[in-house]
């Protein structure tokens, strides 16, 4: 699989990254080389093997449904750029 320039731009857009031409070029080389490496896995015969959904052989890790206090609001908002009425204030969205 080869990542085209368009693909790189699309992925950058999804990640909200602004790339200039030089970076697009550089990352496309790097990403392609990483993907080429991972593609080695295609050489394996996976016939009859269930897809892996988790690397650890464990399941059903649960907690009981008991409510406890969270963190103090001041602490939660301590790193916020803007705060108003006890809430995070963010620029317009749409």
């Amino acid at each position, binding site marked *: 699989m080869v990542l085209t320039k368009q693909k790189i731009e699309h992925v950058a*857009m999804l990640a909200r990254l602004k790339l200039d031409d030089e970076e697009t070029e550089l990352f496309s080389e790097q990403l392609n080389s990483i993907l080429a490496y991972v593609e080695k896995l295609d050489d394996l015969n996976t016939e009859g093997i269930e897809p892996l*959904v988790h*690397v650890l052989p464990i*399941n059903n*890790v649960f907690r009981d449904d008991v409510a406890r206090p*969270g963190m103090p*609001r001041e602490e939660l908002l301590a790193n916020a750029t803007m705060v108003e009425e*006890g809430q995070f204030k963010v620029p*317009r*969205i749409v």
Partner: protein
Amino acid sequence: MVLPNYEAVIGLEVHVELKTQSKIFCSCSTAFGAEPNTQVCPVCAGMPGALPVLNRQVVEFAIKTGLALNCEIAGMSKYDRKNYFYPDLPKAYQVSQYDQPICRTGYLEIEAEEGKKRIGINRVHIEEDAGKLIHQGAITTSSYSLVDLNRSGVPLLEIVSEPDLRTPREACLYLEKLRSVLLFLGVSDCKMEEGSLRCDANISIRPRGETRLGTKAEIKNMNSFRSLERALEYELTRQMEVLEDGEEVVQETRTWDEGQQATFSMRSKEEADDYRYFPDPDLVPVVVDQEWVQRVRESLPELPDAARQRLMEQYELPAYDAGVLTMTRDTLDFFDECIRHYDDAKVVSNWIMGEMSRLLNQHNLEISASQVSPSALVRMLRLIDEGTISGKMAKTVFEEMFTTGKEPDVIVKEKGMTQISDESALEPLVVQVLEANPEVVEDYRGGKTKALGFLVGQVMKATRGQANPKLVNQILKRHLDKS
């Protein structure tokens, strides 16, 4: 609404908040209405390094729901990350279930116009809710928004129907039925106005007889049963007009505007949604064995269909009454409690569907919040049966019970509302009324039996409604018919 040449194809995606004590992946409270950002911790705030641990009760509720909707329960299900950026989503991904949901392929039966109809359930999956954004002014013009994360991480079930619904009415019936099933199960409080029940619709139309699907639109922001029906009706007409004009329906998301009673295109994003789902490495798979399923199956309560059947068979109630009384579990519990101490089921049903519903609607309350207890209603019904109050007076008494929570006997005493059932007290009044209305008396004797009603009314008026109308009737007739 019927479109002669077209058929509607509708499917609903319903989100319900589960009624757990704590959130899905952390121990923060799920209580509604708290001060902003006071039920938040590093997990649901999406702080780096915080690790989620699944709430067992969420899985239990999902299995319960799946079984009630006749679904297959997956032996293994897993959790995936749905990636997108939005300020109400602090992790920049929502934990959801993508290709291995906990429940699949079920159905829900509705009472459609042409009879019972099965609506397929495609899947039920578990996911987490996002926080809440408060826009300053309208969403499109506000310069900033405020973020409250109390809702972030509240457990949700998404219940996806097959596109088996054919009219806006059917969509409503399906949603009502689904709501009552969830209420009977006790897994959600399903309050549309508080957002614990939310519904999106996929809707397309096609010429009658056509089997291929038309291009669909997704409709959002319908906050009540009424707006669901209105929005779908509007959308049907809109799509039909587009096709009639020789144009094509565009696949897009549209939002229902309650004020303008119309749907509007939500500015389509330049690139299509691309959520890049992948398994969440922080969460391990959930394995549900037959034993677990069996245990939940045995714990299932009576569901609306069974309750409805019971009311019709055991108490011979009309289908309509049985339907209304089984809309919510609280209504049914109220009825059942009344009927334990009072024999006439139809009378109880009439009061619940009549005065009780009217006042609940008027005060925007649920029956569980009503100040009238089943035993108080039964006591009031006995006062009618004993002749202490008339049916008409009972309405006033009931309203007073509803607003003050007082016992009916107390109200009757305080208001001096006791019905006059003493013949010797009514007799002179009847005579007075007859003497004052010789023409009406003449009319009656001349064959206009309707004139009797007027005379009864006069006696009632003279006693300010306190006379026993049945008795007044008898006395009047005796006087009129004798001479």
